[in-house]
């Protein structure tokens, strides 16, 4: 019987055909915890009577949200997690590597056909590696730490078919914002979003990660790209691979199929206070901004920084704007450093911070005061997300962020 990619993943892992709607206790291939949701997961693991974690090798543990510790409670949480790692013999990446999702990907900890969970909603990003990966809460994670498995209701799939080449200064972030605008903030609730078509087939891993990362902004349980040569090559540098094919059957049943033409896309901006409030950049061009944030698990990779640097050239950022550039991981930071991008940003007036979540979640530095406006390459613009509930967050691509930072107001990157 014809099956979707996601149905096939669950079927493979379970050894018998599994259909959308089935509820199964599935084994977990990798589980990620960080400094915010980790302590509660550990507490729940213990309350459940957990003594030893199911498999220390399958756990990715690191700190990225509040690093270096920005308050005493944060420091205490870090100590708590460090002790847990030692006690359980889990390799602790601590504060050194960067944002959880980027680190899981670049270490090859998620691969085609695997089931991965993370105590963070943007865990859906690993679908870029062909994994079924989804964000869960801390109690569910406590359960996973104990048993190495979790209940899943196998989701139905919405298929997105994207064709055509992007115009200059338009890219994956504009595409995923356009998709969010069309699907809506809950349009994919409980479902998987499958990205397919020529645009995706030629897209690099960085772009695929940007797209899958934001699947949850439409309520999706997972975003996924069928693994292909680009996926296997990315993984080959990171782990042992044995390529195989894994894709939805032609006649698989999708809830719906949406088609997008990449060629006709213009730069997009999500306006306050919802991710699906998406407009063409022209509509909000001229809006004055106080802070620009280039980074996050959505757009903090080398490719994103390079795009921003290309727009910037040898110009300076506008005097009235604070520009924060935060690479997504230590490795991405090194790449940017070696390519001269970091020097370019610093020379232009940016503050370049060490890899971490930064102001994305409003829990650490870079908070916004009442009335302030931020333009951000991250994934959420909820009211109060980056500080005061009276501040405004707009979301955009790295190119739009750089162009706007030059002018001090939201700017079409095709114009600078």
């Amino acid at each position: 019987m014809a099956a979707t990619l996601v149905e096939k993943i669950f079927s493979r892992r379970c050894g018998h055909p599994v259909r959308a709607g089935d509820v199964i206790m599935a084994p977990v291939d990798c589980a990620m915890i960080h400094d915010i949701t980790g302590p509660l997961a550990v507490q729940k693991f213990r309350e459940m009577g957990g003594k030893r974690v199911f498999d220390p090798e399958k756990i990715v543990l690191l700190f990225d949200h509040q690093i270096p510790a920005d308050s005493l409670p944060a420091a205490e949480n870090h100590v708590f997690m460090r002790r847990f790692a030692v006690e359980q013999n889990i390799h602790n990446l601590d504060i050194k590597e960067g944002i959880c999702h980027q680190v899981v990907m670049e270490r090859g900890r998620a691969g085609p056909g695997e089931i991965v969970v993370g105590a963070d909603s943007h865990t859906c990003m690993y679908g870029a590696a062909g994994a079924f990966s989804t964000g869960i809460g801390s109690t569910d994670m406590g359960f996973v730490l104990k048993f190495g498995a979790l209940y899943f209701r196998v989701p139905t799939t919405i298929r997105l078919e994207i064709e055509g080449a992007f115009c200059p200064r338009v890219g994956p972030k504009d595409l995923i914002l356009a998709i969010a605008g069309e699907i809506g903030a809950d349009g994919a609730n409980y479902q998987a979003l499958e990205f397919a078509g020529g645009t995706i087939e030629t897209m690099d891993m960085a772009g695929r990660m940007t797209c899958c990362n934001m699947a949850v902004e439409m309520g999706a349980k997972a975003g996924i790209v069928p693994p292909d040569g680009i996926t296997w090559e990315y993984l080959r540098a990171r782990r042992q691979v044995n390529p195989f094919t894994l894709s939805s059957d032609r006649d698989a049943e999708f809830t719906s199929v949406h088609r997008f033409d990449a060629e006709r896309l213009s730069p997009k901006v999500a306006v306050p206070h919802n991710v699906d409030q998406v407009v063409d950049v022209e509509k909000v061009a001229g809006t004055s901004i106080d802070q620009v944030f280039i980074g996050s698990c959505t757009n903090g990779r080398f490719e994103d920084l390079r795009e921003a640097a290309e727009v910037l050239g040898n110009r300076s950022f506008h005097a009235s704007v604070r520009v924060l550039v935060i690479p997504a991981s230590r490795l991405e930071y090194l790449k940017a450093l070696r390519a001269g991008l970091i020097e370019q940003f610093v020379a232009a007036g940016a503050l370049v911070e060490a890899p971490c979540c930064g102001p994305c979640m409003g829990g650490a530095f870079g908070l916004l005061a009442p009335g302030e406006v931020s333009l951000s390459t991250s994934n959420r613009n909820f009211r109060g997300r980056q500080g005061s509930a009276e501040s405004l967050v707009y979301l955009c691509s790295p190119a739009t962020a750089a162009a706007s930072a030059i002018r001090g107001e939201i700017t079409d990157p095709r114009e600078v």
Partner: protein
Amino acid sequence: MRTWKFGDNIDTDAIIPGRYLVIYDPRTLASHAFEGTRNEFAAEVSEGDVIVAGRNFGCGSSREHAPLALSGAGIRFIIARSFARIFYRNAINVGLLPIVCSDADRIPDGSPLSVNPKEGYIECGGIQYPIEPVPAFLQEIVDAGGLVEYARSLPEVKTCTGSQ
């Protein structure tokens, strides 16, 4: 007992802002619930109050601090037209019952309301509104009082055996 009415797409950043995620105690979290977006909530909420909302309640971050903050505030039931996936499960896991009711919009703010999950309806202003049952696989967890209690009673779990 009163209802607290909210609109569509109430995200977990609104329920508990990011700067409080270093806290794990439900009562302390409750003192910051809806801070900045509905300040009177934390000040006036009392044991047994009910949240009534529109579509996609609890969207966004997976932070379990959100249902914990609400349960710390004395909330036992959240009635909404629909819930975001992670929040729905988190709520059940911490012993808070999310109830799907397609008529949630018709319930006014501040009104008294009775919830009868077993009988499958809520009642407000003399009118009964039907509610959807909790999916069967989660009902066991609800009955146990949350996932922790449920997991404590499990010696092991049977996974579908791998076929790699």
